[in-house]
């Protein structure tokens, strides 16, 4: 990692406007359509160390080669103190092979001046010493403070945000401790009762006392096993009882497939019926696509939708996943990462609950040497087209012993959306950050410096995270929204937002989940290209709708369901 010395700018100008709040403005409002910005390439600059992010991940790598040692951990973007600056929470692993508890999760407060401060101890979120993996941020009690659900090997933890900079471990009371090995999770209001429920993906049925030997019986050659050697574990769905407790409704809801080996979970309304659906990327077995039947249950429509397998009818080693419109047709598409030698597929949503593998048509590679984990779809250059970031890193630290063409540490990939559903890899021209070899795992995006473009944070299994500052994304215009739910959940998770500018409409959902083990900013960012004003329509999970005309670009807008009808 190369230390940088450029501080993050702090620019905050809260202004009240008619039916929304302009919370932050990075540039003066523009009244006229500007021409397309003469863009030089957007560059990503690695600034973790200089920002004070000194988190070091403990992956517990041992000679025993326990499967969880490969897992890495996620990162959660959480503005826990509601100061308008996204903070960061890192889940941490543990050296379980030697019986050592985790050195602890870490919470970093964004000071707004380019620096982060470690506030873990004060906040009380270090954790119970388990091998923590995923971070899922959401306000489950609608008190306006974002809470943290941490998944892991050996049980999960729910930290309730007390609103004073501290958190309380409410796992037992809430009844969401789960068992076994959980991976990615997501908050969603699947029954539209205004409270966030919790979907928890789980991975392998793994017993640390019975880890089998895999690989050659030669010193140094023991390797991590293929997940095929183990059974899967059913996912969990916890219904929010609205009193701080949850009920496990997994079987009743129809999402408890015992074969699940879940790594990625993404939520979106795939058919526009107003109800959130669930896509689950599984490792080595087919994926699951659960269609919400609007009665508290889901149908597994994977086979009819055509998203279970790769283009050859084989299950991929699905990792992180996204469910976002990538081709601008208003329908959420599926993207997920997969294993080295496979490919990172893009399934285009054709409507009517049908998908097709559009990877090759989209210009994405039909085979990749890298092993992708996280995945994030976001518009890094604010041109109005959603791009894709993939962090990479192999699972097997000694993979080069078996195949010299492969390496444990790998570089990340960035695909720019060219429009028309086509992508081009631009990693090589997007800054030295893309030459950094690391063991990429979790990935989240947020505008940490509130300058109008989305920055990236990537976790490293057994190492330090990358914080990649986006330099130049804000040369195009942009708009960000923060939702205030009333009948709907407090942060408007699941709300659909249509932004129309320059004759083009972008549809996105407020849904910070997806990727791998991680949560991104709950604020929703839109790139507007050269447009300086836009129209916004919001469809709340409650069914209420609102439209806002002539919204100026380059602001962070608070949209309130109280203004919806």
């Amino acid at each position, binding site marked *: 990692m190369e230390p940088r010395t450029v501080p993050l700018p702090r620019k905050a100008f809260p202004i009240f406007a008619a039916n929304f709040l302009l919370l932050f403005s990075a540039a003066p409002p523009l009244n006229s359509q500007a021409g397309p910005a003469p863009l030089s390439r957007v560059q990503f600059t690695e600034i973790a160390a200089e920002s004070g992010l000194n988190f070091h991940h403990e992956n517990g790598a041992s000679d025993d080669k326990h499967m969880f040692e490969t897992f890495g951990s996620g990162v959660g973007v959480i503005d826990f103190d509601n100061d308008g600056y996204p903070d960061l929470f890192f889940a941490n692993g543990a050296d379980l092979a030697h019986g050592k508890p985790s050195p602890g999760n870490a919470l970093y407060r964004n000071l707004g001046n380019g620096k982060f401060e470690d506030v873990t101890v004060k906040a009380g979120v270090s954790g119970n010493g388990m091998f923590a993996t995923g971070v899922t941020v959401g306000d489950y009690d609608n008190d306006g403070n974002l809470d943290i659900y941490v998944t892991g090997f050996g049980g999960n933890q729910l930290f309730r945000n007390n609103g004073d900079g501290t958190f309380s471990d409410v796992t037992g009371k809430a009844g969401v401790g789960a068992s076994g090995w959980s991976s990615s999770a997501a908050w969603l209001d699947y029954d539209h009762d205004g409270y966030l429920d919790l979907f928890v993906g789980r991975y392998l049925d793994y017993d640390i006392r019975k880890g089998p030997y*895999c690989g*050659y019986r*030669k010193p140094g050659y023991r390797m991590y096993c293929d997940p*095929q*050697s183990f059974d*899967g574990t059913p996912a969990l769905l916890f219904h929010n009882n609205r009193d701080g407790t949850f009920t496990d409704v997994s079987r009743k809801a129809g999402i408890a497939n015992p*074969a699940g080996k879940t790594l990625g979970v993404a939520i979106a309304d795939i058919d526009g019926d107003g109800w959130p659906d669930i896509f689950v990327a599984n490792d080595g077995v087919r994926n699951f696509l659960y269609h919400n039947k609007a009665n508290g249950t889901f149908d597994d*429509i994977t*086979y009819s939708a055509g998203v279970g397998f790769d283009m050859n009818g084989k*299950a991929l080693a699905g990792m992180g996943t996204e469910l976002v419109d990538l081709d601008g047709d208003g329908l959420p598409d599926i993207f997920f990462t997969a294993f080295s030698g496979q490919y990172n597929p893009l399934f285009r949503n054709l409507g009517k609950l049908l998908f097709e593998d559009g990877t090759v048509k989209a210009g994405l590679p039909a085979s990749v040497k890298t092993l992708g984990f996280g995945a994030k779809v976001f518009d890094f250059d604010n041109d109005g087209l959603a791009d894709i970031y993939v962090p990479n890193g192999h699972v097997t630290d000694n993979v080069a012993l078996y195949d010299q063409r492969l390496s444990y540490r790998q570089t990340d990939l960035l695909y720019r959306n060219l429009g028309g559903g086509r992508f081009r890899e631009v990693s090589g021209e997007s800054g030295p950050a893309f030459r950094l070899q690391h063991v990429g795992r979790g990935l989240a995006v947020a505008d940490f410096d509130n300058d109008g473009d989305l920055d990236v944070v990537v976790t490293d299994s057994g190492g330090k995270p990358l914080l990649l500052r986006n330099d130049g994304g804000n040369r195009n215009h942009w708009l960000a929204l923060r939702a205030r739910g009333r009948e709907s959940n407090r942060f408007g998770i699941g709300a659909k937002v249509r932004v129309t500018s320059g004759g083009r409409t972008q549809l996105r959902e407020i849904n910070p989940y997806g990727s791998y083990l991680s949560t991104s900013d709950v604020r929703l960012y839109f790139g507007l290209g050269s447009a300086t004003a836009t129209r916004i329509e919001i469809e709340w999970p409650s069914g209420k709708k609102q439209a806002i005309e002539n919204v100026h670009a380059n602001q962070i807008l608070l949209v309130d369901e109280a203004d919806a009808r």
Partner: protein
Amino acid sequence: MRLMRADIFLLLRLGVALLASAITWAQTPPSNVQGAQLGIAAQHLQQGKADQAIRECKAVLAADPRSAPAHMLLGMAYLAQQSNAMIGEAKAELQQSLDLDPELLWARFYLARLYLDQGLTEKAQEQLERGLKQSPGLPPLLSLLGEVRRKLGDPAASLELNRRALQAEATMTPARYFLALAYLDLKQDQAAMSELEKAVHSPDATPEMYNALASLYITKQRLTEAEDLCRKAIALDRSRPDAFLNLARIYNARHESDRALEALIAALPDGKSFSVSEYYQGLQSDIAVERGAAYTDKKMFARAIEEYAKALDLDPSRAVIHRRLAELYRQKGDPANAALHTKEAEKLETGLR
């Protein structure tokens, strides 16, 4: 001589009779159109057309994702593809079928079979015992449970369970094979040979039955019969390396080194991908040993030394390789290396004692 580990897709053949039963069951599911489609899938499977069976099952599941028999048949069709890459998928479908309908006995049987071949013997045992509670005394379950018990270190239990299975169903070829394996564990080679001879005369004989018997014949120097068995195994499944390896052993024993080398190429062709496992480590080591023997026979000592060194690198625990290397170095006029390998061989042999 080591017996090769049996791969799941190959052992699937052991259950041909069971598959037929399962298909018969699946041909009479409650619903109409899907029932007909499942019937077609079952027929494809019976005819060895796994890909077509998979297509039919997926079509049924697209219409009815909760069809337990469709999940079961799909799992079986994946197994019938004989690809290690499909094991995870097969297991997932069988598990889902049982989750939807715990009464699907054959799904339980094949799941147990998969567990067994993955080395998850306790899970296999659990499935089989559950199955036997549902259907006490069912010969295929008894027989497989016997094999599970053998793998758990109790060959006597396998003898008992497989004998019971054979009492109930005398034509059950897999039970004979499992009996033979139990006899081999008990060092009763003659009894094992007798069971295997009965097994290979059955129409349900599988490549590993032929090959297991071939291995025994090789140790008894019955090379012509062994060669015949290897050819039968290969005729059934050319993708299996173990029969080719045995052929190479036979040719080396007859000093037909060129033919031995050809057989070894067929055992693990260049560019063939394989999973990284102890089985393949052992296989590569065995192949290197036979190559070493062939090159020794051809008086290509440098190549022979190279191959034996490769074998040792893959499996340093085999004294016999050190002995052969010691002999080669002696012939080469390199007493220092010869002494070194003799010492290593002695160390290993002492350790074995």
